[in-house]
């Protein structure tokens, strides 16, 4: 682990952002190390090709934190990142987000698409996504999910891309982010107030991001993005300029950004990390609680819990919706990224527990009584992240109490699956019922 020094390089980028660009306090602790969640998760998002929703009050660095990470992980000068951002507003159109017809060619009766910088860039930022009306949010669903951008029967597919979207808290100009779009974000994090003293420092050092600008490379990149060559051919040309910008950054700022092959290598290393048994069993336990319904087969947002249900002590009784299949994928992705960064040999339960609240917070719809019960609790986190952290705490407590029995139940499940004549283990948790359901389904 860590033989090629990529982890050190990633930590140097984290440290550089934290020391010089985005001042904030650490707010999460993993294995004795303290991190700021906004920078850490943004860094993992950029490295893992993830999708991150950054929430917070206006002016607290939601967009800038993402910009710094994109500049240093993808080697794009700030000017290019600014020029490729999409801002959410009610008049936003597909032509401004994805692409427009080439008007010159259209006059000659030919159809061709001029792709926007946003759709072509690997590091994408959507500013104030919740100012997009609900009807227009669906325009970016596919792009957000798969990196496919389609216009006039033409399509470009981003091979490598990550996406950051910022959202303000509800005010007169905001809309609700539609559930399918929310679910496509891997994590949600808050860019929070850094405290009076750090805030004062930020005010003193206003032009701190100037170091990440480079007008010449910005011009070169704009030129490539605007050129009429095929998208696939633009990528290597852009990489050349990005590498030159990366060298400039290393020389001037002393921090080395990642090149494309570095990022690919990092992803290969991350993918090779396996999930340890406890992390797997804990995740299954959590997923069971977020999806199980004894009466109706699974949680559905349109169905309510029945009186006298046996499973009132679990999360299924506190929530309205069902966990999507994207949740375990996000959990694994980010836990894997974290394990890699900490140079651990596998993904353990601590990695999992550290990232799960951020993967869960935006996806869970809590029942009204739970919201009113807990809204006045003393807390440091925004309400959804606080609720998710509490939920993870409760599940981990349950997991500690019965981890061996639970793992045994899964092991017995495996043996039954392989044909042994055994009885599935009994237990109170929904996961035991889920194991039985899986075995029954295979039998019939």
């Amino acid at each position, binding site marked *: 682990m860590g033989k090629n020094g990529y982890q050190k390089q990633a930590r140097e980028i984290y440290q550089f952002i934290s020391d010089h660009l985005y001042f904030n306090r650490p707010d999460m602790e993993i294995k004795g190390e303290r991190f700021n969640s906004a920078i850490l998760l943004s860094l993992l998002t950029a490295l893992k090709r993830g999708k991150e929703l950054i929430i917070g009050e206006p002016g607290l660095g939601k967009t800038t934190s993402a910009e710094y990470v994109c500049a240093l992980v993808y080697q794009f000068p700030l000017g290019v990142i600014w020029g490729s951002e999409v801002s959410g507003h009610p008049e936003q159109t597909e032509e401004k987000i994805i692409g427009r017809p080439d008007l010159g060619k259209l006059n000659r009766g030919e159809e061709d698409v001029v792709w926007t910088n946003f759709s072509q860039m690997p590091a994408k930022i959507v500013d104030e996504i919740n100012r997009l009306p609900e009807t227009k949010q669906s325009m970016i669903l596919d792009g957000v999910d798969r990196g496919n951008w389609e216009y006039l029967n033409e399509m470009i597919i981003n091979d490598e891309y990550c996406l950051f979207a910022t959202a303000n808290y509800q005010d007169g100009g905001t809309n609700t982010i539609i559930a399918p779009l929310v679910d496509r974000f891997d994590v949600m994090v808050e860019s929070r107030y850094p405290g009076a003293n750090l805030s004062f420092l930020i005010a003193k050092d206003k032009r701190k991001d100037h170091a990440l600008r480079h007008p010449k490379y910005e011009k070169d990149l704009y030129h490539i993005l605007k050129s009429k060559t095929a998208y696939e051919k633009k990528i290597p040309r852009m990489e050349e300029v990005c590498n030159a910008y990366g060298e400039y950054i290393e020389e001037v700022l002393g921090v080395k950004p990642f090149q494309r092959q570095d990022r690919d290598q990092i992803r290969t290393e991350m993918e090779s990390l396996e999930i340890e048994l406890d992390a*797997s069993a804990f995740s299954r336990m959590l997923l069971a609680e977020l999806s199980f319904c004894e009466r109706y087969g699974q949680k559905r947002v349109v169905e309510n819990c029945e009186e006298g249900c046996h499973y009132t002590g679990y999360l299924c009784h506190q929530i309205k919706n069902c966990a999507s299949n994207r949740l375990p994928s996000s959990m694994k992705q980010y836990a894997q990224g974290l394990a890699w960064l900490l140079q651990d040999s596998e993904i353990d339960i601590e990695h999992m527990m550290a990232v799960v609240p951020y993967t869960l917070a935006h996806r869970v719809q809590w029942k009204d009584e739970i919201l009113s019960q807990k809204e006045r609790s003393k807390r440091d986190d925004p309400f959804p992240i606080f609720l998710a952290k509490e939920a993870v705490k409760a599940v981990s407590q349950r997991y500690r109490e019965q981890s061996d*029995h639970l793992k045994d139940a899964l*092991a017995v499940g495996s043996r039954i*699956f392989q*044909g042994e004549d055994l009885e599935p283990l009994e237990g109170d948790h929904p996961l035991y019922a889920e194991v039985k359901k899986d075995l029954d389904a295979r039998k019939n």
Partner: protein
Amino acid sequence: MKPSAPPKKSPAKENWGSRNPFEEFKIFTPPTSDGDFPLDQIVQSTEAVMDRIRSGYEKLLEEEAKELVWMVQYNTIIKAYEVAEKYVREIDFTAEDIEDFCFALENTQKIAYLIPGPAGIYISALCNYAKEEEIALKLSELKTEINLLGFRLSRGKRLVIEGDTGDFTGIGLEGGELIVEGNAKNWTGAGMRGGKILVRKNIGLHTGEWMMGGEIYVGGRVRGLGNIVEGKVYERDKLVYPGKVRYPNLYY
């Protein structure tokens, strides 16, 4: 030639899908146990702790019966507390166990006597030796009001009592925070050295007798103050000591 024997697997099993969703767990071997379910183990361990707490209380009653600790004198209280400490120190318990014990005082046959004085001393020792900094006790369902709760509650501890308390609540408080969500009787906060007592409803006579520091807040009425050496007493946010009222039990 005999046809070869069919494989032992049943046809139904052969139809199973190829992907085993539990495969990674096939290497798991459970630690040797007596075959109990985890819940049984939890219940058993909770019962074992409760037995030890109960037995400590019974021993305290036995040892102190001769001294008639509930005929309160300060030196007998201290002695009883030392005995309680001796038993409590050896038990590994949680705040939840204290609450269970309070409930068991009246609601099980296993505890022969609920004597408000020793019970209060014993509960105070449990609270002072608990790992948790904040302890909440629901006493509103008890018919008997327990005396001496919050005895010597130390700095950093917060004890919240739901219900009424008896005499000598929070005496000798040593910097902790005691909240009574009900009424407290006479001699509350007597001899306290620091900390805060908050009684949401009314408080009895001799409040703060010989108190040396700290604050007593009363949400309702104070029937009478004791001889206070130092400290503050508030009645409905109004400072009543130090103030015009200097004489014990002459407030009303």
